[in-house]
């Protein structure tokens, strides 16, 4: 059952992602990107990651998707679509090479060698994950507190940078 779900999701995910790259109409590409985001959320559900799936829908499919559509609607010259350039063929060859490498690496590696590495928190498979994620993030002894705090500074810096770039020089 899970396997069937995986393959259905995988096909939807890969085909929508391909369409995002290949479509010339930017608006359609953005809509398909949202489909792609939903696909990732579905993938999380098959992996029992309920919190991540909800966050994926809320943040990516919801917030980022809508922001993207707004940005496209407010942009002029939408009809011309993606600008044409001469590097299509080299880009295609390079991407295919990278894809072949990644597939080769994934198939060629013996992934079963991953033995027990001490985890931040032991998590039972059939329980909601939210509280466990919180423990992993904020645990006093071995949680990911530092990156979390750096992320808050990062957001502040991004905010300040965005304000500077958007406002015009001179009196307002």
């Amino acid at each position: 059952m899970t396997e069937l779900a995986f393959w259905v999701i995988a096909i939807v995910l890969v085909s929508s992602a391909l369409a995002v790259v290949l479509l010339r109409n930017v608006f359609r590409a953005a809509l398909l990107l949202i489909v792609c985001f939903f696909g990732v959320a579905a993938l999380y559900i098959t992996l029992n990651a309920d919190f991540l799936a909800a966050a994926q829908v809320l943040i990516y499919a919801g917030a980022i998707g809508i922001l993207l559509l707004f940005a496209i609607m407010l942009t002029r010259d939408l009809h011309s679509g993606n600008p044409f350039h001469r590097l299509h063929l080299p880009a295609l060859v390079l991407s295919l090479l990278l894809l072949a490498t990644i597939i080769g690496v994934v198939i060629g590696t013996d992934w079963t060698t991953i033995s027990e590495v001490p985890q931040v928190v032991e998590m039972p498979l059939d329980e909601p994950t939210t509280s466990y994620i919180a423990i992993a993030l904020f645990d006093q002894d071995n949680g990911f507190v530092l990156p979390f705090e750096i992320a808050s500074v990062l957001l502040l810096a991004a905010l300040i940078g965005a304000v500077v770039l958007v406002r015009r020089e001179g009196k307002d």
Partner: protein
Amino acid sequence: MNFWLLSPELSLCGIALAVVLLDLVIEQKKVLAVISVFGLIIPIAFTIALWGEQQASFSGMLVVDNFSLFFKFLILGISALVIISSVDYVKKFARFQGEYYALILFSTGGLMLMCSTGELISIYIALELASISLYALVSFLKDPKSSEAGLKYMILGAISSAVLLLGMAFVFGITGSTHLDQIADKVSTLVSGGQLWDSPALLFGIVLMVAGFGFKIASVPFQMWVPDVYEGAPTPITAFLSVASKAAGFAVILRVFYTAFGIEAISADWGMIFAVLGAISMTLGNVVAIAQTNIKRMLGYSSIAHAGYIMVGLAAISTLGKSGVLFFLAGYALANLGAFIAIIAISNKTGSDEISDYSGMSRRSPVISFILAFCLISLIGIPPTVGFMAKFYIFNAAIQQDLLWLVIIAVLNSTISAYYYLRVVKVIYIGEPLSDEPIPSSIPMRVSLAITSIGVLVLGIYPWIVLRLAETAVVTFP
């Protein structure tokens, strides 16, 4: 959690916040620069007070040892010099001075954290903190060139972050941990049998991580952003990018590769990757630099070449090589900052970065011209400057590891580089001046020029002052 270990970063963030808030009430914006520079003394003092500490906190994510403290001190010093030399430059964006200084400080904080984390996720977030602040700073001038530079830097930076994350994901996938020391344990069991090729995922992860970090240090083939970004960005930010960002990039590479992938079975493999990339970087950087007419672009290509020289030290997997990298970065920071500060002083008056406009500059401003020439000579690597000592030390390390071919390429490259550096010196001293107006220099400019040029000279004669520190710093790694 030991907040004492985090004190340099915490105090730095405090100063950045203070600058942002005081910007609201202070009319005289120069005060903000004074607050930033004198504020930086606090984290510098904490860094010096922590020297000798050898501890990890935040479950191994914050690693405080002499290695990270060496880089923190270097980056804080660079940041202070960049802020001092911006004081005149900021009149170009008078309205956003507070944000300008605050973003430099945030970026400094990110770079410092990059140097002192022992965990991949923290490394990534710290790198993003440094980069996102820099994306904004690069497009601060808001003219077409600066905006183009910012956009290019951001798009290519985002791609390189994605590549880095993919590499980290592969490494995490095969080792099951993001902590460098745990990765090291797992790696030693994974490749105990023989070659890196036995585990393609690990090899691929390492290659992708080299690519991601390679963007930060501007090595081939991830150097394409350098010339445009260096030319378009505000000159003090170009200086900051070329030294601080590069230093932090090398610090992360040293820590990740020596801690996580340091076992002998595979260190020769990634050493060879760095040797080849280094040889290509220096050759490409130096050859293309010859054709440049804009001095910022020329120094951009020169910074690609210098990334190549420093990678010689990475390729020589030995204590000598590691401490050589640290010393080279310190010397390069001094010489390159000195050159850039002189360029800022000159372009504040002439408004041009074209080499042809430097004609006869020695008669308009003998001191600034001399310092610029002196710093360029240090970048070539001619005694009695620090550039000579740095190259001597790092090439010596490579020879002891039987990397003679790499050293020959590096020495040939240094000779090529003499051509375009000395061409600038020739224009300055032999060309006819375009006007008789002298180049004015304010007190902050004089202070920063004096610090860098004295540093270049003193470290060129007594390199031991910093070399000893560099040697104690790299003891951290086996």
